[in-house]
């Protein structure tokens, strides 16, 4: 029934899954488990999967497992994004010298399984497969958030995440059950053939189901008004889990959102314009205004992520032009910038404790001048100041929207950029001008973290040299060439 080619196409997923199972068994049988060995195995599994992905790189003609998955170059790139992103976060999060009980074996297994779920999400071509991948990822994330089960804040964050995530997955499920009732199948291609002209009731049902499915994905990517979980969950989870949720998980949510809009829901887009407009406008407004009053750095990152999501989603309104491509480029640049930010935040500590308040960054410019400069570059990029990469990200998005005549939305976005600049600039001010209250930040920064900070800062600065080439590469990957 299934060909050998099917299994070869899913080799990366199989490697990640067996890596996770191997780690789990090893955790049961090996009594003297050192954190470093399980960490090494997890990173090796991810890199092995990445190698397999490169060696089995195929053209889009193969749709593995009777078209339950797609194998186009966009899916390949997204899978390697997940693999490399997860591997980088695992490397960054590894601090064997810190004397905190951190459940390393469980952490690594859950990270691998969550990465597997995300890989399934980005390469799914069937709503049921997408649902299973989404649940695999979400269930792992609930546990990861609550992994320090002796701390009330962690468990409470996990519980909130679980409840709200459960509602989101229910909405998604109900939506796809209606798709199934209308079309008799859940594959993207069959759902794409549905149009709202087929009878009055069928049209209404299709539109409601589409909204339910997209709402569930808006939850995954923390777009307002589905963002309520983000600040609490971000604040309660530890920094390494947050690094995963705020970068890889969020970008995967956007990728799936874009793929659904591009292929199965293409015929609905004309009706969805109001929804997308509201999503973008609300996200940037809520994220920019609510972020201004935060003192906790993780909460600030949550609101910053919400407002960045709003800026990215502006371009979805311009779906007739190059809107989706612009969103993808925006998210790629956001992803790289945030990796740099987290590489910094994960390595900074004061008296062996990871920093949690913005005021903890005071004195960074005197104790670690280079890192303060890098963080300042990242903040300028997030604001969107030229000549950093974030400027071009916003430029693409704004141009795509203006080209389709949504000038008002872009003006509002520019206004909100100025508001959001308030909290990004406050971080720079605290680093350079405030004096620390208690002691200096801990001196040594891990070599891996240094390397990632350096590389991401270099990307952010040097992007100005070849923005056109980056854009062309993304365009050549885009899946719309398929249909």
């Amino acid at each position, binding site marked *: 029934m299934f060909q050998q080619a099917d299994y070869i196409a899913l080799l990366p997923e199989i490697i990640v899954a067996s890596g996770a199972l191997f780690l789990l068994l090893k955790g049961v049988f090996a009594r003297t488990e050192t954190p470093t060995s399980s960490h090494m195995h997890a990173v090796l599994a991810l890199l092995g999967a990445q190698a397999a992905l490169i060696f089995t790189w195929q053209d889009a003609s193969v749709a593995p497992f009777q078209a339950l998955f797609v194998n186009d170059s966009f899916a390949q790139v997204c899978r390697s994004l997940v693999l490399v992103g997860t591997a980088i976060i695992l490397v960054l999060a590894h601090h064997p010298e810190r004397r905190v009980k951190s459940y390393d074996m469980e952490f690594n297994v859950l990270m691998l399984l969550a990465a597997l779920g995300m890989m399934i999400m980005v390469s799914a071509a069937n709503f*049921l497969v997408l*649902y*299973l991948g989404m*649940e695999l990822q979400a*269930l792992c994330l*609930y*546990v990861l958030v*609550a992994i320090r*089960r*002796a*701390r*009330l*804040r962690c*468990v*409470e*964050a*996990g*519980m*909130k995440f*679980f*409840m709200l995530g*459960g*509602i989101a*997955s*229910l909405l998604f*499920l*109900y939506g796809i*059950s*209606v798709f*199934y*009732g209308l079309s*008799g*199948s*859940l594959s993207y291609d069959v759902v794409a053939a549905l149009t709202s002209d087929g009878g009055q009731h069928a049209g209404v049902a299709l539109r409601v189901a589409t909204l339910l499915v997209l709402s569930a994905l808006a939850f995954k990517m923390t777009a307002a008004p589905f963002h309520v979980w983000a*600040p*609490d969950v971000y*604040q*309660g989870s530890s920094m390494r889990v947050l690094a995963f949720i705020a970068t890889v998980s969020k970008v995967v949510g956007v990728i799936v959102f874009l793929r659904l809009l591009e292929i199965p829901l293409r015929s609905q887009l004309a009706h969805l314009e109001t929804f997308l407009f509201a999503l973008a406008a609300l996200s940037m407004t809520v994220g920019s205004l*609510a972020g201004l*009053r*935060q*003192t*906790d750095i993780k*909460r600030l990152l949550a609101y910053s992520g919400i407002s960045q999501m709003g800026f990215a989603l502006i371009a979805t309104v311009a779906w007739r032009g190059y809107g989706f491509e612009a969103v993808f480029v925006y998210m790629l640049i956001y992803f790289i910038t945030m990796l740099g930010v987290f590489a910094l935040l994960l390595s900074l500590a004061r008296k062996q404790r990871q920093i949690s308040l913005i005021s903890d960054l005071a004195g960074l410019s005197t104790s670690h001048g280079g890192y303060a400069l890098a963080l300042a570059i990242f903040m300028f990029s997030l604001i969107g100041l030229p000549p950093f990469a974030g400027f071009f990200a916003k430029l693409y998005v704004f141009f795509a929207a203006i080209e389709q005549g949504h000038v008002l939305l872009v003006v509002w976005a520019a206004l909100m950029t100025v508001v959001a600049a308030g909290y990004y600039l406050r971080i720079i001010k605290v680093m350079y001008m405030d004096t620390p209250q208690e002691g200096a930040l801990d001196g040594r920064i891990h070599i891996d973290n240094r390397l990632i900070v350096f590389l991401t800062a270099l990307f952010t600065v040097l992007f100005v040299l070849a923005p056109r080439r980056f854009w062309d590469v993304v365009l050549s990957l885009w899946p719309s060439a398929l249909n």
Partner: protein
Amino acid sequence: MSAWQHTLGVDHYFIVSTVLFVIGLWGMMINRRQIIFMMLCMELSMLAVILNFAAFAHFKSDLFGHVAGLFILTVAAAEAAIGLALIVALFRLSDGNIRVEDMNTLKDSDKREEHKTS
């Protein structure tokens, strides 16, 4: 009796499952006290979706819906296991009361300051 059997179509199943789904969601919204009740409501909504799949599959004479129902049932079991584990962890850390309204240690910073001063 026979007339009734003839008129029981896919629409009726759809209405029943929609009502069950909305009851489940509504129960999660209005219930502000017990986490266990919230989980029960979640399960109810999930079963409503499975009913939907099973009914559609039956009336279309298609197997895929039944398979989807089985998959969703499995995921629901895994989700319930994780939810109950979280409840146990929360129960150990609290004073023996796990109410939804007690989950308030995570807050916006300005609200937290108001809380302290009051």
